[in-house]
């Protein structure tokens, strides 16, 4: 029997009843009334409060930790340090993980945990933290990745040698984790064909995901060694397996239940408190709750990489891009794990290029280890690529959208990383952008317009789920992927569509790690696609079973029953005359047939359809202060099929807002002492509501034939072109395009002064 992956059954003529509508999310009511249970709402009787002692130094040898005085504080039940964690060799995956959770030989960033306390009150825990004596031997530190690459930079890990380096570079201690080369053709040959060549160095800053919910967890280590852990996570199974790896506890003894998620965006794919709370609970013989403060979130959880990209691009007079050469540097924090290879793969994937070279470097430095954030490492390099395309379009006098259309890829394109694309919708997205109201409207006086395009692969991967039919005919779904943005509702909609029942008769819940097989992290814009396939497959299994039960009730052969519009009917009059049986009627009789009906599915899902977006933005730049105001913003993107258009629109709009923050103001400010100076939302300037206009959206639907409803992921694509589009708009406003993020007022004002000096911007 062929599987749903081989035969998804996508039918372009299918008429939907539920797919494509936007019902109110089932979990929405509790969220707007404040009753939803997030991680910090978890409570166990008698639980202790856990707090973390963090390094004040960005780089130091951890010489001695003395907890004697701290342990005497009344109410303190356990104190843990590196000595409470199994030794795992440095430079291995597990070795890095355990050292990120709790420092061992050295501390690598300001905020690195060096001890944790569990006590009966927060006051007692804090008092104990102050009494823990730590002796550091402070070492020189390095924050910036480009500085960290220099020969005389302080070395974080003496054992580190650059993977992929050649010659003497491969032999010496370094902060460069890896040198990665990816390309096609011959760039020298390509540039020889170019009529115009532009190049530039672009830098972007680490960007925090800015989730509202602070990480929190409750761990209970039982007398029998069973761990129960409640936490907010995008990756319960990944957390479980990592806990197994670093704490040497069998996975069968670790049960993780995810809470409602108060924002993740990739930032909740990495654990921080969870291993500490488990070890504290084991030592204290009590449940332990730990919650980060916002300051801790900023100091000690991972933003996405900051980058420096040097890119050279050439095109012909007709707009054909002939070659791109690039050197890309990615900051990863003290350990590898930036997913930087996404960047060379995605940076140009939407244009049909023959000659490309990318050389990428991942670099360690003394700041928190990076984590994922919507299309990790891709928006950063697209900022440079789309900026240069814009410069070329200006040079040759071509409309920026036409230039992209000239180079756009279509179905059958073989990517730089070897994948050949099935049906894709980039051209349709560009055409929709050309036709949209925003692009057709003249640029208002005093404003300037920028456009940029973006891409993300969209992912699949290991996914498991279950569906149960209750005797009253309603349906429950148990999901292994996290609900980061309303996917439970999308799953309920897909199940209801397939089963032909109202969506209110379906409820989806999030499984604990004991209830289902392995589920890959909820990331890569994979959830609605992958779990959606699991849901449709499970529903189809239920339908098959419904037909069997109807056959049994009617006492006819199974093939004599068909399922249509939510009821089983005889396949033809030859089968006999029977009144159709609804799901509810069959469900009610399962006791008399063969017992309960459920569908279950697990697979390594493939066939995710790549997504493409165009952003159009109008800005106004105050030429006296350098302040940029975003006046109008439109996102045009291919969603394949919008299961719930309101949710797709929400993904687009949220991404635009995050892009505006990244483009204009968000930035970590480190002092010369290597300490973060703006660990909070007051001075880490994420946009507020009044900083952004209404974000308009155009949902393009070029179906992904590998999904039963044609959908493509939409979680990450809409962030990828944002900073580039804003940068292009500012460039048109002031005559010189900024090449460094954030494009904050002081930087833009300096460029305005330069533009005036060079005569490309008239004196004000």
């Amino acid at each position, binding site marked *: 029997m062929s599987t749903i992956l081989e035969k998804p059954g996508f039918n372009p003529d299918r008429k939907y009843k539920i797919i494509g509508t936007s019902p109110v999310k089932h979990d929405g009511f509790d969220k707007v009334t404040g009753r939803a249970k997030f991680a910090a709402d978890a409570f166990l009787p008698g639980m202790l409060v856990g707090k973390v002692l963090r390094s004040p130094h960005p780089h130091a040898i951890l010489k001695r930790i003395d907890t004697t005085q701290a342990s005497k504080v009344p109410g303190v039940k356990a104190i843990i340090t590196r000595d409470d964690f199994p030794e795992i060799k440095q430079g291995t995956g597990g070795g890095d993980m355990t050292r990120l959770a709790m420092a061992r030989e050295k501390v690598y960033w300001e905020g690195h945990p060096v001890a944790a306390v569990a006590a009966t009150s927060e*006051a007692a825990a804090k008092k104990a933290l102050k009494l823990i004596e730590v002796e550091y031997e402070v070492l020189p530190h390095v924050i910036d990745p480009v500085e960290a690459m220099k020969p005389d930079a302080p070395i974080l890990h003496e054992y580190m040698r650059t993977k992929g380096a050649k010659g003497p570079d491969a032999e010496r201690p370094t902060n460069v984790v890896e040198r990665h080369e990816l390309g096609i053709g011959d760039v020298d040959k390509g540039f020889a064909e170019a009529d115009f060549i532009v190049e530039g160095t672009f830098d972007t800053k680490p960007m925090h995901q800015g989730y509202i919910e602070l990480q929190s967890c409750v761990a209970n280590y039982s007398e029998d060694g069973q761990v129960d852990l409640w936490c907010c996570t995008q990756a319960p199974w990944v957390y479980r397996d990592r806990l197994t790896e670093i704490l040497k506890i069998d996975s069968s003894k670790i049960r993780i239940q995810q809470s409602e998620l108060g924002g993740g965006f990739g930032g909740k794919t990495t654990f921080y408190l969870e291993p500490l709370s488990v070890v504290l609970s084991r030592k204290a013989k009590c449940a332990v709750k730990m919650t980060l*403060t916002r300051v801790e979130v900023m100091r000690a959880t991972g933003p996405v990489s900051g980058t420096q990209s040097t890119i050279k691009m050439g095109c012909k007079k007709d707009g054909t891009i002939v070659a791109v050469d690039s050197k890309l540097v990615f900051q990863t924090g003290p350990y590898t794990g930036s997913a930087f290879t996404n960047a060379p793969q995605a940076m140009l994937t939407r244009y049909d290029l023959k000659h490309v070279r990318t050389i990428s470097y991942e670099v360690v430095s003394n700041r928190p280890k990076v984590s994922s954030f919507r299309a990790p490492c891709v928006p950063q390099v697209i900022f440079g690529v789309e900026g240069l395309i814009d410069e070329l379009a200006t040079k040759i006098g071509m409309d920026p959208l036409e230039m992209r259309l000239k180079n756009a890829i279509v179905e059958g394109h073989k990517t730089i990383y070897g994948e050949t694309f099935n049906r894709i919708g980039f051209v349709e997205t560009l055409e929709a952008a050309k036709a949209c109201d925003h692009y057709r409207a003249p640029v208002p006086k005093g404003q300037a317009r920028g456009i940029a395009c973006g891409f993300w692969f969209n992912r699949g991967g290991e996914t498991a789920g279950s569906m149960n039919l209750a005797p009253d005919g309603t349906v429950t779904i148990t999901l292994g992927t996290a609900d980061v943005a309303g996917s439970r509702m999308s799953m309920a909609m897909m199940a209801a569509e397939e089963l032909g029942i109202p969506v209110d008769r379906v409820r989806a819940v999030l499984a604990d790690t004991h209830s289902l097989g392995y589920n890959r992290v909820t990331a890569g814009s994979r959830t609605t696609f992958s779990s959606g396939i699991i849901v449709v497959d499970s529903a189809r299994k239920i339908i098959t079973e419904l037909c069997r039960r109807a056959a049994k009730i009617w006492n006819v052969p199974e093939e004599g029953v068909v399922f249509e519009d939510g009821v089983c009917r005889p396949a033809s009059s030859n089968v006999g005359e029977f009144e159709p049986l609804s799901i509810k009627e069959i469900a009610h009789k399962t006791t008399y047939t063969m017992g309960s009906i459920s569908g279950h599915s697990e697979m390594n899902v493939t066939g995710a359809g790549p997504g493409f977006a165009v952003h159009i933005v109008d800005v106004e730049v105050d030429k006296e202060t350098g302040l940029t105001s975003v006046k109008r913003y439109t996102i045009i993107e291919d969603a394949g099929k919008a299961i719930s258009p309101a949710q797709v629109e929400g993904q687009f709009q949220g991404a635009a807002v995050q892009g505006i923050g990244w483009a204009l103001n968000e930035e970590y400010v480190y002092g010369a002492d290597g300490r973060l100076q*703006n660990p909070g939302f*007051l001075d880490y300037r994420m*946009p*507020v509501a009044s900083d952004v206009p209404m974000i308009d959206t155009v949902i393009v639907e070029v179906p992904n034939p590998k999904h039963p409803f044609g959908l493509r992921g939409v979680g990450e694509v809409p962030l990828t072109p944002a900073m580039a589009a804003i940068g292009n708009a500012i460039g048109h406003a002031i005559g010189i395009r900024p090449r460094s993020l954030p494009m904050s007022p002081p930087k833009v004002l300096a460029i305005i002064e330069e533009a005036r000096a060079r005569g490309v911007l008239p004196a004000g």
Partner: protein
Amino acid sequence: MSDVRFEAPSSLSEAVRILAGAKGASRALAGGTDLIVQMENDLLEPDLIVDIKKIPEMRAIKPEGGGFRIGATVTGMEMIEDAGLCAKWPGVIDGVKLIGSIQVKGRATMAGNLCNASPGADSVPPLVAAGALARIVGPNGTRETPVEKIPVSPGKTSLAPGEIIESFFLPERPRNSGDAYLRFTPRTEMDIAVVGVAINLTLDSAGVCTQARVALGAVAPTVLLVDECAKALIGTRVDEAAIDKMAAAAAAACKPIDDKRGTREFRIKITSVLAKRVAQKALERARHTA
């Protein structure tokens, strides 16, 4: 934090008695929008907190001598909703409106904004430009002092132990007076001033400036009241030349630092830009008020 003593007296004399008798670190609590945040971030661990919001006479805005007396625990939103105050002192309200969010302004007070002693406090430059007086009550009685004398350096005030601000007095205004405040922040709201400029001026019937006060925020350890700026405006029709001269004097007077919120160089440039914009706004208001 568990050891902190909390008092909420219902009279001013009781509050002063408790504060004057306190051992260790003590703080008066009004809206708490700075105090509680600082405690939450472990920047401050007071032994005593005295909530002064239960003291009735500190909770009201009252007319007095043609001006206004504003109790120290009157919140930002209460000021914004007072039509008479808004009409008379729009520049002071400009500053109050920029503090935090509506929710924050629902708790925050000007007295707290002043006693937090941040050079970037938004309500302080317009109060200074307005010539506002603070009435301070303490163990040795009551005294009146110009607002600009209260902060002495970031986080420090001239208040003696046991002293609290009871109220502010905004004086009666001559005809054809206008005041305004603008700040520069990268965000539209929920931000801290990189530079703030407040100007309060009065015109005579011929449109000549007879009085002016110019105050600069976030460009020195405390809010600056710049006489040279005032001199540049007084006696002029507040024309472009006068405004340019005033803006140059403002830029020359500021002594900013480089910090996470802005560089010294940027702050000086922005001071001049804002000074011009604020002067225009204050002028406009002076021309249109009776």
